[in-house]
């Protein structure tokens, strides 16, 4: 990354941090909220139907974490982006711009690793 304007530093830091934070949220179960679409309920944090009731409840009330993981990553990346935007341009000069595409590639590989259990069923 070069001595770029603030929005450029924000966008580059945001994209890179988002990929890392999304994988972290996915791996550690850090969903900002859980959606139960069949009930029309949104709960803060990550919840599993099977943990609080009969496992059969998951069939009736499936939970969605994807939005929550994305929200966690978006908010975290926003912080990183804002910090990068506030830093003086020369501070970010030494950062390799290739991180912008290398980080998402590794994040996607990590997601493949996290999805392996689906393929062992």
């Amino acid at each position, binding site marked *: 990354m*070069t001595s*770029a304007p603030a*929005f*450029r530093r*924000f*966008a*580059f830091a*945001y*994209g890179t941090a*988002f*990929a890392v934070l*999304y994988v972290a949220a*996915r791996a550690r179960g850090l969903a900002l909220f859980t*959606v139960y*679409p*069949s009930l029309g309920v949104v709960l803060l944090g990550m919840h599993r139907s099977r943990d609080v009731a009969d496992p059969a409840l998951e*069939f009736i009330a*499936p939970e*969605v974490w*994807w*939005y929550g*993981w*994305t929200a966690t*990553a*978006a908010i975290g*990346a926003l912080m990183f982006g804002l910090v990068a935007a506030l830093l003086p341009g020369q501070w970010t000069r030494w950062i390799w*711009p*290739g991180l*912008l*595409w290398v980080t*998402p*590639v590794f*994040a*996607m590989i990590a*997601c*493949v690793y*996290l*999805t392996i*259990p*689906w*393929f062992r*069923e």
Partner: protein
Amino acid sequence: MVTALLIIHSLVAVALLGAITHQTLAAWAPAGAEPGSFFGRFRAVQSASFANAIAVLYAVSALLGGIVYLNFKVDIAPYLERDGHWQALGLLDLKEDFISIGFGLLPAYWLCWRRPVADEPGRTRAALTAVLAFIVWWGFLVGHVMNNIMGFGS
């Protein structure tokens, strides 16, 4: 309503697929291609002009997919689990992950194409576009698999 949204989602995805494939091939095609050749004509197109359309189409497609996903989780996913379509569900899980990661890259992608700076390596822009193209192709193909899983070929 959901069926209409799904059809619009797929139409937007087709437009996105065409635009980003064109841009990716243009970005990676050899610079010395013959002017009248296939890649020569590809490179003659202003690739940067695709960036706005791609960013908007990606956002709209992801938004529509996110809405349709709620119905999928309630009306379809439980039956796929019951019937043991675990691999297909795993592929869809990856689609969700990749789409989110791609969403985070959109601002940087747009800047790389629309506001390039002189000392920024062109390879970064081309690689970023290729990553997005992979995500779009993955999403498109997995979407098709999920759409047809209980129909043709099942």
